[in-house]
């Protein structure tokens, strides 16, 4: 509770500080602290799920962002309360769960050598596919994440990331990630691991972007042994003013067998107006570790009174019928 009060106090200070500046604060853009190379922002997310006659109400994310740059160096810090409070209701019976530790979601330093070369050191979102680059509720198109973004590759990497980008004709990028240590904070990484090596190639011109990633990681298993997993992912995104089509398809294997034969999605988003958007996502996966194979159709609707505020509803229809669910969320970027 004390931490929450402290957090709200910091936010109120930011608003107070912003009111004194020439450029007034705009929601979703953060605020500059004095004349320091320091910007502060944050986001919150509340959600509701109805599945198998169970209602789940959750304060999911309360996060603080801090970033800035000085000469060739820039930094990013993201601290987060995740799954902060959850209330379950089934047949009139209520149970609740609170999780108050503050976690390090991202913490890294970037060094820009020049126009083309960049080096990153710290904990960051694995630069794999498109979805995992902007994974927070308020920025993604639906409340839920595609299954492929959860089971194929580690969401976070702690280590080194380097990239070469050329902007001559379109945008061509080749990059690599290297982790050879434990996670800085593994609590919410989807894999517990101490090794991750990956590379990617992407090309984009105007509305079209293409990306290919491949890598391997060493994940801890329940028996405390580790197992090497290899993955590959192709991703395609086409975006115009009124609509967007994005697709990712990948596979994961161990030395012996396919651990995920395939996992992917194809999503279309149509903006009826600046505020209203409809989403249709089709997903399919064959997870041979969890022994789950499913096809999913997701019908979503997002209302953004202004872009940094998202009110979303979605209904998921699964071939595994017990997975059918309704989701609703409210999220804000500060």
């Amino acid at each position, binding site marked *: 509770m004390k931490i929450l009060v402290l957090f709200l106090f910091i936010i109120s200070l930011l608003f107070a500080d912003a009111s004194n500046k020439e450029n007034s604060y705009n929601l979703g853009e953060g605020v500059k602290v004095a004349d320091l190379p320091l910007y502060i922002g944050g986001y919150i997310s509340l959600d509701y799920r109805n599945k198998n006659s169970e209602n789940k109400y959750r304060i999911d994310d309360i996060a603080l962002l801090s970033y800035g740059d000085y000469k060739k160096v820039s930094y990013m810090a993201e601290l987060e309360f995740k799954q902060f409070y959850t209330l379950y209701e089934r047949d009139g019976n209520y149970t609740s769960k609170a999780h108050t530790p503050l976690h390090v979601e991202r913490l890294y330093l970037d060094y820009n050598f*020049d126009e083309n070369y960049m080096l990153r050191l710290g904990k960051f979102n694995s630069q794999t596919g498109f979805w995992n680059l*902007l994974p927070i509720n308020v920025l993604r198109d639906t409340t839920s994440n595609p299954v492929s973004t959860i089971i194929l590759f580690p969401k976070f990497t702690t280590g080194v990331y380097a990239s070469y980008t050329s902007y*001559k004709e*379109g945008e061509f990028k080749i990059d690599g990630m290297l982790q050879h240590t434990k996670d800085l904070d593994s609590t919410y990484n989807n894999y517990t691991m101490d090794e991750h090596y990956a590379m990617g190639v992407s090309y984009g011109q105007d509305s079209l972007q293409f990306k290919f990633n491949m890598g391997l990681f060493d994940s801890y298993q329940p028996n405390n042994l580790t197992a090497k997993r290899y993955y590959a992912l192709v991703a395609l995104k086409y975006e115009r*003013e009124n609509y967007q089509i994005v697709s990712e398809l990948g596979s994961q294997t161990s030395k012996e067998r396919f651990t995920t034969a395939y996992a992917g999605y194809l999503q279309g988003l149509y903006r009826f107006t600046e505020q209203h958007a409809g989403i249709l996502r089709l997903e399919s996966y064959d997870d041979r570790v969890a022994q789950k194979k499913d096809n999913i159709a997701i019908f979503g609707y997002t209302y953004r009174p202004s872009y940094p505020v998202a009110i979303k509803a979605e209904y998921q229809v699964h071939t595994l019928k017990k997975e059918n669910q309704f989701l609703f969320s409210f999220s804000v970027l500060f």
Partner: protein
Amino acid sequence: MQFFLKILILSVLSIHIEASEYVVVANKNMQAVSLGQIQALFLKKSSYVGETKVVPLNLSSRNLVRESFEKKILHMHFSRLKSYWMKQHYLGHRPPISMKSEASIKAFIEKVDGAIGYIKLKNVDKKTKILYKWSD
């Protein structure tokens, strides 16, 4: 009479053509850049041209020159750019700083080596370097 009418029409047309021609300008010391580089600089995907740190300058929002720049050069309209900058805030990038007028942009460019902005062609003078030209 017809002759004067033609002259009048041509004059109006020439004024219109001149008014809808724009340029991306930079400090005299800036090296030549491609359209792709201009897009990357104004979307803050890159902050350098070679090893020169670049300071991109916007005109204030809803300015007609800015609207033309965003549509013709960045290929994005206001609402899509708005959502783009929200996403960039999460990634730790800020939009270019905004200047009140083309005169402010020119004054800034003269003083700062890596400054880059866009103005109407008719407002270009010898103190700035033209990097790219477009028209509506």
